[in-house]
């Protein structure tokens, strides 16, 4: 044990006119069972009180602490220094707007995403407080849960070449969200409704299928499988859309 860790951390405070983007070096003795959560707080409390970063649950549940750790997007609270070399370089997530240092604005990006994919159950039914709940097969509930586990950390977006190049690309997280609603019988949207949202170059047809997204997802959401399914479904739907009305059948 007793290594000294060197942290190279991106620094820039856009709200301070004297601040310029730069890298700062901090040295810290490693302690047992240290995570980046422990280390960054120690740097802030003992060395530089201005260092900006985000943590909330510090347990890998809330998605607040995503950053680029030695070149790879990941959750800082979920990273043990023990698994890292002596030098650790930390950068803010790209794509999202920088707040300062390692802190980015994911809230605005994700709220935009909810509106684009209309991330809610669409139904004409009205809730009846006196009625029993509608039944659902437990296996289906678990399948929906599997896709609902996304914590909106933004790692998949930060790792995606398409998202880096085009600002309007929905990203794996949004495509996965839509796949979640397609699975859910409570959502009464039609295939055409879904197609209108993702059957475009900003949507599923912009995806190059290189799967950096699945690689970095801390929740191991099966993004590859979901993107593949969605691509096939939407390709089929686009053919259907091109056919003259009288030829349209259910595939």
């Amino acid at each position, binding site marked *: 044990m007793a290594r000294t860790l060197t942290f190279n951390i991106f620094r820039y*405070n*856009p*709200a*301070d006119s004297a*601040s310029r983007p730069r890298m700062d070096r901090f040295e810290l003795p490693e*302690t*047992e*069972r240290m*995570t980046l959560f*422990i280390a960054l707080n120690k740097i802030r*409390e003992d060395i530089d*009180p*201005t*260092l*900006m970063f*985000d*943590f*909330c*649950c*510090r*347990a*890998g*549940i*809330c*998605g*607040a602490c995503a950053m680029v750790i030695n070149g790879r997007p990941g959750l800082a*609270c*979920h990273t*043990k220094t023990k*698994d890292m070399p002596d030098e650790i370089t930390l950068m803010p997530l790209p794509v999202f707007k920088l*707040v*300062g240092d390692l802190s980015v*604005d*994911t*809230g605005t990006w994700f*709220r935009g995403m*909810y509106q684009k994919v*209309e*991330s*809610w*159950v669409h139904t004409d039914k009205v*809730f009846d*407080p006196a*009625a*029993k*709940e*509608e*039944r*659902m*097969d*437990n296996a289906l*509930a*678990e399948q929906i*849960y599997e896709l*609902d*586990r996304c*914590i*909106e950390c933004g790692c998949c977006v930060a790792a995606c070449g398409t998202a880096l190049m085009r600002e309007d690309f929905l990203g794996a997280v949004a495509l996965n969200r839509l796949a979640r609603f397609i699975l*859910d019988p*409570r959502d009464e949207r039609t295939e055409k409704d879904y197609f209108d949202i993702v059957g475009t170059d900003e949507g599923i047809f912009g995806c190059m299928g290189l799967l950096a997204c699945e690689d970095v997802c801390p929740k191991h959401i099966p993004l590859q499988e979901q993107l593949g399914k969605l691509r096939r479904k939407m390709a089929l739907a686009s053919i259907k859309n091109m056919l003259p009305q009288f030829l349209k059948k259910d595939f």
Partner: protein
Amino acid sequence: MRIIQSDVLSVGAGLAGERVAIEAAENGFSAICLSIVPARRSHSSAAQGGMQAALGNSAMGEGDCPDVHFADTVKGSDWGCDQEVARLFCDNAPIAMRQMAFWGVPWNRVVPGEQTYYKGGKPFTAFEKPENEGLIHSRNFGGTAKWRTCYTSDGTGHCVLFTLDNRAAQVGVTVIDKVEVIGLIHDGETCMGAVARCLKTGELTAYLAKATLIATGGFGRIYRESTNAVICDGGGLIAALDTGVVPLGNMEAVQFHPTGIVPTDILVTEGCRGDGGTLLDKNEYRFMPDYEPEKAELASRDVVSRRMTEHMRKGLGVPSPYGDHLWLDIRHLGEHHIRTKLREVDEICQSFLGVDPVHQLIPVRPTQHYSMGGVRTNKDGAAYGLKGLFSAGEASCWDMHGFNRLGGNSLAETVVAGMIVGAKIVEFLKGAETVIKTASVRDAMAAQQARIDGLVNCASGRENPYAVKNAMHDAIMKGAGIFRNGKDLETCVADLQEILARARKVGLRSNGQGANPELTMALKIEGMVKLALCVAYGALKRTESRGAHTREDYPERNDRDWLTRTLATWAEGADLPTLNYEPATHVFEMPPGDRGYGGGKIIARDE
């Protein structure tokens, strides 16, 4: 001056805040939720266990109904709760769960036929009725008479919060994140909104509203050892206390959990001890049987936590850079059991400690877990002391939990209270207009700006806010942790008073520009020490043991003198809260009796 106006302002975008905002928006009112983090990162997302509601669909929940749930809740509270509120909660919980299903929560559902379940690590079978197939299922949680906890695998809070935030987006609730409320706008009679600092730019904004809701969750971070998210530092409660007229209820009622991991205090389930895990000290000696010969590690949460603390005080804790701790040993349960039945524990140890529990010991210590106390409201969720101010969720003292909340009841409370309080706020908005006084707005903004300037210029001193925080953490855990007695509490109160004086002399080392985190800390440290004093002073004065509040020097529950709720207010410039008391409940559906667990003597009421 930046001003933003709405009908309803919720300080907090966790489950409680969003549920209230949705009710308002559905009824045609404009609603804004403010949050330190994006709504879905709120601490509600961390609750994995589930939510209690007496649906009675599962085999192990058969025969359940709100009456049974009510009895569990009142007993759990050690008769400290408001029974009218507990009744409201239990009757409405099933409706709230069904509504969440309607909005999209993928609750686990009943699978018919013979099923294998576990109790105390042992498998048994139960027969699920075919006619209940596909209805909301329930699991065992929190020592209740029936299995009544609705859940979605290991992510209940997460799924319910995502669903509610979806609904909020759909009905047009405006969520503004990365902002922190640092004060309320009021004139001593009416609340007109809040002053918030933007955590992106540092800018101040006055959010004006006809109805303001405090839904900021727990304040666990006044303790160093806490399972709560790092943002759970009681900002909403501080704002309420600073008005001088809004009381906080039962602040001394704090729940602890015996096994948080060290250093990050992430909770590992009690299932570990249930299945046969043992606790060891620095000599790897199993000490619990010496203290509790009969139950050893299986004694109740509070008892185990207290014995652990007692043992560490004897110098038998394991020293570490993060303070002393003990060991949890589950190695003898075997690889198969640990990797399957205790999979979550295995994952936490591997991911956050780098410890393999099959071969290594797990460092644990008791940690703060839940705050029963909060902004005191009536059963409609209206805060005492200011018109137009409401509160719901863990931030409130509504008060269905009394001196001990049952596992699974707090998450359920957020959506049930949100539904009920939301409807009451809608009624309030339909019935009255709030007059916004521009002088109150100007004064509140000026006062906050002056505070910021003072901190940046070190006008009152140069105390380091983090050093003050650490001193507070040391003091409160010593006196008002799990183990309480008159002598230690007196020391604790005196220490905290000194620390409060230091908190008033805080000044920044940095320039405070933009979303400066040192300023963020400096702005709340005085308030946090005040909350700590409300806890410690309330605990000192309450000379009995009730629920989670256990006094070594007063081991009995005293219904004769203490069937009451503590109300703490803070007079301007004071260095202690003012304590008043009110009856715990006006309605007794269930007269005080024995809880049937936890032992302990009772001093009966005078009839």
